[in-house]
Structure formats: C-alpha cells, structure tokens
C-alpha cells in the first residue's frame, strides 16, 4: 500500500508538471490543447534520441526539451490556436485533435510504432526507503517536477510577466483595455505551457517507455488533473496530478493495471457534474 | 386583485459582491412599469432572476397566483413570463418566421392555431414581409422587433423589455414604442421596461421603480419620481442618454 502510494506520488509529480502546462493554456487563453499529450511525447522522444544516438543520459535533455517543445508549441499557437483564443469552441477542439493526430502519425512514421524504452544507468538504480523501493529516476523526475512547478508558481506571483498573465487569465478584455499586450502574453504563456510538457516528457522517459500513441494516454490525465485541481489554478493542477498518480497506482495494485484509470474517469465525471470549478478553482473562472 | 408579477425580497451576490440586496416590487395586470437606475444597479441581474436563468440567494417570484421561484426559465416562458435581452439573441440559423414559430410552438396561444398566431404577431410588429429572412440580413431595428415578436407570441402576460431602444434612430424608436403600446393595449400584456433613454421611459411608463446599488430606492408615477430628491441625487442628476 505504501509502495503504491509512494510510486503514485512520484509519478504524480510528473503528471502534475505537464498538467500545470495544460491548465495554464486553458486558464489564460481558454484553449483546450488536445495535443498536449503529444507535446509530452515529443519531450520523451527528445530524451530517447539523445540517449540512443548520443549515448548521453536522457536527463540532460531537461535543458533542451522544454525549449524544443515550447518552440513547437509557439508555432502551433501562431498558426492554429491564435484565432480561437478566448472561448473554447468546437472548432478549436477539432483543430487541436487534428494537430494531435498529425503529431502522432508523424512520430509513428519517423520513430516507428513500437514502444521503446530508455535504459539509463541512472534509472536502473534503486533505493530502499523504509519498506519502499523506488528508482532514482522516479525520485529525480519528481524532484525536477516539483521544483519547476514551484518556480512557475513563483514566476506567476512575483514577476511582472506573471502578473500580466494572471490579469489576462482573469479577464482578457479588461487586461487589453488596461494596456497589456495580450497577444504577446498569450504566445509566451503557451510556449511555457508546452515547454513544461516537453520537460515532463524528458524526465518521464527515464523510466516510462515511449511510443507514438502515448500522447492519447497522457492527455486525459492532464485533463482530469486540471479539472480536479480547478480551472485557473496552477498549483491545483499539480495537486490534481498527484491525485491522478496516486489513484492510478493504488488501483493498479489493488485491482488491476488494465483499469487503473477508471476511477479517475469516474472522478472527472463527478466533478464535471457537481463541481466543475475543481478543488481550488474559482467559480467565476468560466 | 392578484398582481401580474410580484418580486419579493430578492437578494443576489457574486462571490463577495452583493448585487441585489433585497428587491421587492410588483406589476399590476396591464400596466407599463419602468425600471430605471444607474449602470451597475443590478437591473439585468434582476431580469435574469425573474426570467429564471439565475437563482437568487433569497427571495420569491410570484407570477399571477403561482410561486415560480423554483421553476426553470422555459417553464416560466411557457406560462407567459417573457423577456427580451439587452444584447439581441436571435437564432441566427433560423428564419424570422421560424424564430417566432419556435416560441409559439412552445407556448401556444389559448385560442387559434400556432400558424395564425405567428402570422398575427409578425403583422403586429410589421415583420410580415421579412418572414423568410435570416437575422443576419436584418437591420438593428428589425432584429429588435423580431426578438419582441418571439417574446410575445403565444402565451404572454408579462413582457420584460431589456433596453430595447438603444441604438435606434428616433423614427425607429417611435415605431417600437407604438408597437409596445399596442401590445399592452390590445393584448393586455403587462410591460416591465428597463431603459436608459429617459424621455421614452417617462412617456411610456405609468409607474417607475428606481434601483440603486441593488435596492429599490423609490417607486411611483414618473412625475413624482423626477422630483424625488433621493432619486435625483442617485441618478437623475445627469440627464439620460
């Protein structure tokens, strides 16, 4: 039980990292980035490539992946999402789905459909903490994730840029009247959101195998974590991610791994029906 | 005699902001009541609550003899408690006639067929030649008339008009005022009107309710309200739009 709890938290931290990105895109621009999972996937493949072709530890890509994937995110924003900012529409969801399909299938054509794993020297070492086995990879990934989320939260609260982002998230029209350049904020915010996804992918691949379709597996997690944590709450998305990780691992241990996400789906539906603003969201954040 | 509409003790807040702090008033059958007050006084919120799209924190709404506080918006409309919107909300992919026909189907008239009723209301609002048009092809004045047609068709005993005259030329406004008077006179519909165009409210309304910061601060015939110092201080200090 403790084992499942601990692995859940460690995995959940990484889930939380990319969920923060998802939540940010939604909170600031009302964009539901269906392709967010694919961003994580790209981060994962970056790590995988560095490991396979350069023989380096994939963990080094934490400096590269966020910028690479963030860059792709910015492109996606400029060419696709920009026109949908402000209201989540059917067209935006469909465009996002289309992007996800394009990224997925391109990845499959380039990397092949097989699931591939990274075997870093780092990752295969295990620690024994009390009654629990954890791998270095899991711990390091969690540590990086937690630090980044704290950093993001700090940036949002303390920097000028962060304050502008929050102002826009609260009311884009008002922010524009006051004179903030909402477009510039949107671009950087989206870049950050996808960059976080890329980073999450880079640390995740140290112990989680990658395949082109992993995006569709991870995106629902981001979605659930965001709704649970509360729309508009970055810290909430992280907590949502932790909850997802824990519930998954507990379900996997006590019931079956095949159905590990079912309780999460049920939770999501319950929240959508009764508490759509999540645990920490503001009811007005609609 | 029962009031056509009775609003009692309605309170509403958003988060920490108190928008309506205990609003009570009534509408007599067949009267034209004006609801005025500065921006932010809570008039639109009040309409949303009376219409049934929003729940008040406290208070009751009685429509005729029935307590409709718990009833959803569509049930209220079917019973005859009707409204228009400040920002026109027509069904853009339906023709003018279908916009009206839809509402007529939901709350059919007590006598006669739906088709005849639709025809009659379109005629009343001078829309009979525009039946097959789409809202996007109409002028602002025409769209406002369609919204009113949709609101009054079928069963309608109380009509709430939310700033129906804004953006109209004086000719268009005059036509609309005539139409409203006809609806009131010929169909016995009680009217509650929210309006910023002061001369119109003064001319049309038989009685005024003044809302300020979520409270009713005065109520009475236009002549009396204009001179009420409380009102003047709150609102009529500046001339209307």
């Amino acid at each position: 039980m403790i084992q499942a709890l601990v692995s859940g938290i460690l995995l959940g931290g990484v889930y939380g990292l990319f969920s923060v990105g998802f939540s940010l895109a939604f909170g600031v621009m009302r964009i539901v980035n269906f392709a967010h999972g694919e961003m994580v996937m790209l981060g994962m493949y970056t790590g995988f490539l560095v490991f396979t072709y350069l023989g380096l530890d994939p963990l080094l890509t934490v400096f590269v992946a966020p910028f690479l994937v963030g860059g792709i995110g910015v492109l996606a924003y400029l060419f696709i999402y920009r026109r949908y900012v402000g209201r989540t529409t059917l067209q935006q969801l469909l465009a996002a789905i289309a992007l996800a399909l394009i990224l997925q299938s391109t990845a499959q054509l380039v990397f092949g459909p097989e699931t591939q794993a990274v075997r870093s020297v780092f990752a295969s070492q295990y620690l024994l903490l009390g009654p629990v086995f954890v791998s270095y990879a899991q711990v390091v990934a969690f540590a990086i994730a937690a630090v980044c989320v704290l950093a993001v939260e700090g940036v949002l609260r303390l920097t000028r840029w962060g304050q502008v982002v929050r102002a826009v998230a609260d009311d884009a029209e008002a922010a524009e009247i006051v004179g903030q350049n909402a477009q510039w904020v949107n671009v950087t915010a989206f870049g950050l959101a996808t960059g976080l996804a890329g980073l999450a992918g880079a640390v995740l691949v140290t112990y989680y195998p990658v395949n082109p379709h992993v995006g569709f597996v991870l995106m629902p997690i981001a979605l659930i974590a965001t709704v649970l944590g509360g729309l508009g709450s970055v810290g909430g998305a992280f907590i949502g991610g932790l909850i997802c990780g824990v519930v998954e691992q507990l379900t996997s241990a006590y019931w079956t791994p095949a159905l590990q996400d079912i309780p999460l789906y049920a939770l999501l539906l319950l929240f959508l029906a009764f508490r759509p603003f999540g645990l920490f969201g503001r009811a007005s954040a609609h | 005699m029962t009031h056509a509409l009775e609003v009692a003790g309605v309170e509403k807040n958003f988060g920490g902001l108190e928008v309506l702090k205990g609003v009570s008033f009534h509408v007599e059958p067949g009267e034209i009541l004006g609801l005025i007050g500065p921006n932010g006084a809570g008039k639109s919120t009040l309409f949303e609550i009376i219409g049934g799209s929003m729940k008040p924190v406290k208070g009751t709404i009685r429509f005729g003899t029935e307590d409709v506080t718990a009833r959803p918006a569509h049930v209220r409309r079917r019973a005859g408690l009707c409204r228009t919107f400040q920002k026109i909300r027509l069904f853009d992919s339906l023709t003018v006639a279908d916009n009206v026909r839809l509402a007529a189907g939901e709350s059919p008239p007590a006598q006669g067929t739906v088709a005849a009723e639709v025809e009659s209301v379109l005629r009343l609002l001078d829309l009979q030649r525009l039946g097959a048009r789409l809202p996007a092809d109409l002028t602002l004045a025409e769209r406002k008339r369609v919204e009113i047609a949709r609101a009054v068709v079928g069963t309608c005993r109380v009509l709430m008009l939310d700033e129906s005259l804004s953006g109209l030329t004086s000719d268009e406004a005059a036509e609309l005022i005539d139409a409203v008077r006809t609806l009131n006179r010929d169909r016995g519909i009680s009217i509650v009107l929210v309006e910023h165009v002061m001369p119109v409210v003064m001319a049309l309304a038989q009685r005024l309710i003044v809302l300020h910061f979520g409270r009713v601060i005065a109520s009475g015939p236009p002549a009396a309200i204009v001179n009420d110092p409380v009102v003047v201080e709150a609102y009529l200090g500046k001339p209307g739009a």
Partner: protein
Amino acid sequence: MTATVPVSAPRAAPVFARSTLLLCAVLAAVAASVPFWANSYVTSIVVRALIFIMLGQAWNVIAGIGGQLSLGHGVFFGIGAYGTALLFNEAGITPWIGLWIAAAAAGLCAMLIGLATMRSRGVYFALGTVVISLGFEKIARYVVDLTGGDAGLAVNYRGTAPALMQFREPSAFLWIDLAVVVAYFLFTRWLLHSRFGLRLQAVRDDEHAAAASGVNVLGVKLSGLVVSAVMTAVAGALHVQFYLSIDPGTAFGLFQAIQIQLPALIGGLGTAGGPVIGGLVATLLTEGTNYGATLLGVRGGDVLVYGVVLLGVVLYAPRGILGLFRRRAGSGA
C-alpha cells in the same frame, strides 16, 4: 465557455436544397447498381463508404444540428456492434431483431451519459464523452469472458443466411446499408424543418435564448443524443454483420470516434447532404492513402492524412464542402 458551433448551417435556398436532393438520388442509384458491374472488392468499398456515411449522418444529428460536440460517439457504435454480436452468439437472436435491442441499449446509455454531462457547459460535455469512451474501451479490453478482450469478438459464421443477416456476397449488405443511408438522409431533411429540429438548432445557436423562448434545453439535448445514439448503434450492428468481427479499438477507440466526425465536418455540418458528400470524400481519402501507403511501404499514413484534412477543413472550410457552395440564403430565399 461553451463548445458552440460558431458557424451555423444556413437555411438552404430551395434551389440548392433541390440540387442536393437530386445529387443524392443520383448517387443512390449509382450505388445500387454497383454490384451489377463491379467486382466484390469495389462493392465492399462501397459498403464501407455507406457505413461511414451512416455514422456521419448519425453524429450530425446531435453535433451538427444540435451543436453538441460528442467526441465519444464510438461508445454507441460499439454497443451496437458488440450488442448485436453477443445477442446472436450467446442467445441465438437474429441480428434483424438483435440490432433493435442493441440500439435501445445505446439509447439508454445516451440518456445516462447525457444526464451526467449535458447539464453543464458544452465543453464539459465534449470532454466528458472523451473520458467515457476511453472508459468503455478499457473495460471492453478487460472483461475478456464477455467481449473477447483485445482480440475482440467474432460472429458465428453461417454462410449465406438472410434470416440471420449473413451473406457471403457483399451486394446484399450494400443494398441494406444503402436503404439505411437513404432513410437517414430523408430523416435529416425532415428533421431540419420539424419542430424538434427547430428546437435543436435553437439550442445550438443560443441556449440561453432558447430557454427564454420556452424550450426545454436539457430535454432537447437528451432527445437529440438518444436519437443520434440509436442511429449510430444501427450502423454498428450493420458493421459487425458485414465484417463478422469487432474489437475494442475499432469499436470504442478514440480514433473511431474521430473518424465518425469526419463525414459531417468535411461535407457540411448541420446539413442533410453534408455527411453523404463528406463520407464519400473521406472514404476516397482512406482508400487512396492506404493504396499509396502500400506502394510506399509505410504504415500509419492514413492517420496523418486524416489529421491534415481535418485541420484544413477546420481552419479553412469550417462549413464543409457544401458550405463552400452555398451562400447564406438571404433576401427572398
């Protein structure tokens, strides 16, 4: 924050409506004749196209006319397919009857899903359906005893047995499916002008105003979803009888749910002819891509093509092919 359809389907000028009708009649006649002059491979492709169109027509009812974006319509398809197959395999019920039972089950499921997700904003409905469809897929993979797990289910083959909806030649399926497509087309045309259709479109255009005009918004949405679900389940039943097998990925997978959306999106959301045209285009795309992929020796190319086409349609032709030809029916239409 609603997932509204920002471009509404305009009322067609009568001349356009008649020309779509004519086009579809011609297409139907051509399709019916195919078994007489083409080989069974071509006939099979037409069957595939017809089922694709059928699914598009069904989804179009709730998403196009009703404006409610269901991203998990695969659920109803799967219930139709698995239901019909299981009723036959386990209980010997002929699919001619079994399909109605499965369709009813899909309808009931739609009611429950709708009650759970349609009371809140549009985007929550869409996201809720994604998650429900994922859940169904996982459960279908898990309950191996019932559904055959990952490998899926095969319908017990009896050769040509019309009473059991089994035919060795695809031509019979072509005529059955064509009849259903024509029926769905006529139904959609009727719906667009009917009282129920007006309500659906009003809810799509503006829920708030619809409620204020007396429309029972939740009731309308639920009814639309149920009708759409039943139509989808029938397609699922016809699919499983044609292929004689079904598996969780094909039934409930996210990819299937996305495919279901293509015909209406490509052809014209909210119109009667749209899913027909769009379904044809989408089938041609699929066949063409698969052919090209076999030539080049690559797999997975069809997903890429779907993605690009979908993106193109959404960004540049949001009203679909029919939307490109129609002006909004304005004055005097």
